[in-house]
């Protein structure tokens, strides 16, 4: 009995320790929160387009093909860093990309896209950050993958890097 009394807490302690060790070793960002919208329909929105006076209606943009939604702003340095990968999705993979210009000056955003290239088929203006809240966005840049049934299949918080670009391509291949 005494032996058991010593063994149980030791085993429990070692188990907890190994869980902590596992979480420490695996490749993860502890501050990243999984999206609550995964496998759910895209939140609806209607907003002004950055390119013309027409409005963008979300129900017209999603539901026909695979779409990438990218929240960005000109004041966000990581958005500039990931821009090349967003451009690659549009140029090489021929994927439709909807941009959401988050709390930004539309004039600056237009200039920014002229300078860096425009990968977006359309860009919605989100001056007050209301669309972002509806999408559960908390740290831009954020990127969502939407399948042809308008269901959110993946969300990435932070800039797209080389490894994330590859990861997203694998997910796209699976969705397709």
């Amino acid at each position, binding site marked *: 009995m*005494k032996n058991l009394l010593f063994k149980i807490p030791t085993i429990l302690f070692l188990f907890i320790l190994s869980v902590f060790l596992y979480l420490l070793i695996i490749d993860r960002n502890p501050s990243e*929160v999984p999206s*609550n*919208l995964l496998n759910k329909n895209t939140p609806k929105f209607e907003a002004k387009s950055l390119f013309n006076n027409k409005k963008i209606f979300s129900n017209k943009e999603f539901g026909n093909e695979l779409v990438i939604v990218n929240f960005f702003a000109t004041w966000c340095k990581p958005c500039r860093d990931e821009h090349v990968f967003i451009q690659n999705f549009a140029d090489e993979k021929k994927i439709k990309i909807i941009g959401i210009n988050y*709390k930004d000056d539309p004039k600056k955003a237009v200039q920014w896209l002229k300078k860096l290239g425009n990968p977006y088929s359309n860009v919605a203006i989100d001056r007050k*950050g209301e669309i972002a*809240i509806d*999408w*559960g966005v*908390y740290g831009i840049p954020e990127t969502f993958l939407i399948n042809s049934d308008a269901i959110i299949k993946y969300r990435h918080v932070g800039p797209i890097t080389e490894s994330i670009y590859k990861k997203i391509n694998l997910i796209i291949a699976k969705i397709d």
Partner: protein
Amino acid sequence: MKNKNFIIIIIFILIQFCFNSCYAVEPNEILKNKEQEERARNISKNIRCMICQNQSIDESSAPLAKDLRILIREKIKSGKKDEEIYKFLTDRYGDFILLKPPFKPDTLALWLLPFIFCIIGLFIIIVNNKKSKKL
């Protein structure tokens, strides 16, 4: 003299603790209706700032925290109940946005494990005590 300085430093540190509950709510955010403002403050204290993650939106000066404080006040003004506001936020950000996790099947381990460990610990202490008394 050294002792006196030490006591002054200790008193200074203790005074800091008295004022550690600072709030980020800006004057222009405050609602005129006191009852509605109190409701907004209570909800804000239970909502996690998704950027700072260890602060409530009531204490955080992050832009998203401010947006959520304003949103909560707008919803209260438009007649929404507290439960509806909590649902609106958890639908978008998940249960993580609540500083106090809800009691439901997913969080059962989180709520019950501390009690189970306490019971195991108490059991071990009692059994050990009885044995040492016998000796």
